[in-house]
């Protein structure tokens, strides 16, 4: 065949290459649906762990401070951050579980995190720093992190 092609020649060429084009498209879809999930799972785990670390920092800062009239605004800000983080991380954890590890239920672990971070005298108008909560916060968050880390090992 020499250029320029006629209409029949173009159609003949397309008929010739279409099985290969189709194979590349189907192969791409399979690759995207299966193999692509492998590298995205660790990135999702890193994202969740970063969120958990931020929650731990905010919760520890909150429980380390005395709450009184002077710093109530800061306490309210941290309370909103901690409450919001628990809610969003719970949803993201559920999404992770549904996509990558259906057998693992993160809900009971997040219940413990919520209880540790937002229980007791959380949102009290006045209270003293509560050192006893530090360990509860650290341990409950660590349990979730470890459950996630096991997926990366």
């Amino acid at each position, binding site marked *: 065949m020499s250029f320029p092609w006629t209409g029949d020649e173009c159609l003949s060429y397309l008929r010739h290459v279409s099985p290969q084009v189709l194979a590349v498209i189907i192969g791409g879809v399979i690759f995207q649906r299966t193999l692509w999930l492998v590298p995205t799972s660790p990135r999702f785990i890193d994202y969740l762990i970063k969120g958990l670390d931020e929650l731990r920092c905010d919760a520890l800062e909150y429980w380390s401070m005395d709450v009184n009239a002077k710093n109530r605004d800061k306490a309210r800000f941290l309370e909103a951050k901690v409450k919001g983080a628990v809610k969003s991380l719970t949803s993201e954890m559920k999404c992770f579980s549904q996509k990558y590890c259906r057998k693992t239920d993160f809900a009971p672990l997040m219940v413990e995190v919520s209880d540790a971070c937002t229980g007791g005298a959380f949102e*009290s108008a006045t209270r003293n720093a509560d050192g006893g909560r530090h360990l509860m916060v650290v341990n409950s968050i660590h349990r979730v992190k470890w459950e996630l880390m096991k997926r990366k090992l």
Partner: protein
Amino acid sequence: MKTIKIATDYSETPLGRYPADGDFNGTRFRDDFLRPALGAGEVVVVDIDDVEGYGSSFLDEAFGGLVREGYFDAKDLEKRLKIKCEDPDYAIYCDLIWKYIREAKPRKAV
């Protein structure tokens, strides 16, 4: 059957345990909404959706407080209290509510 939707009947931003902590605290929700409804002897459905978020302190005082203060026992609440949450993001709060109800111990009378 009586339904209480926290977001519309009480507040979208319930907060704190005691009256000193804010207007929409757990004690007030328990005493003004839950106790009268449950005291009437009917099944009470509490819809927890559409609130910005709950602190465990609010949930513990509002629901766990029903048992702790001696108003109802956990078995009675399991029969007559239904927690409604259609949004899956709120399922954790449903779990927390039942945890606080089941773990609450009635205070001993002085």
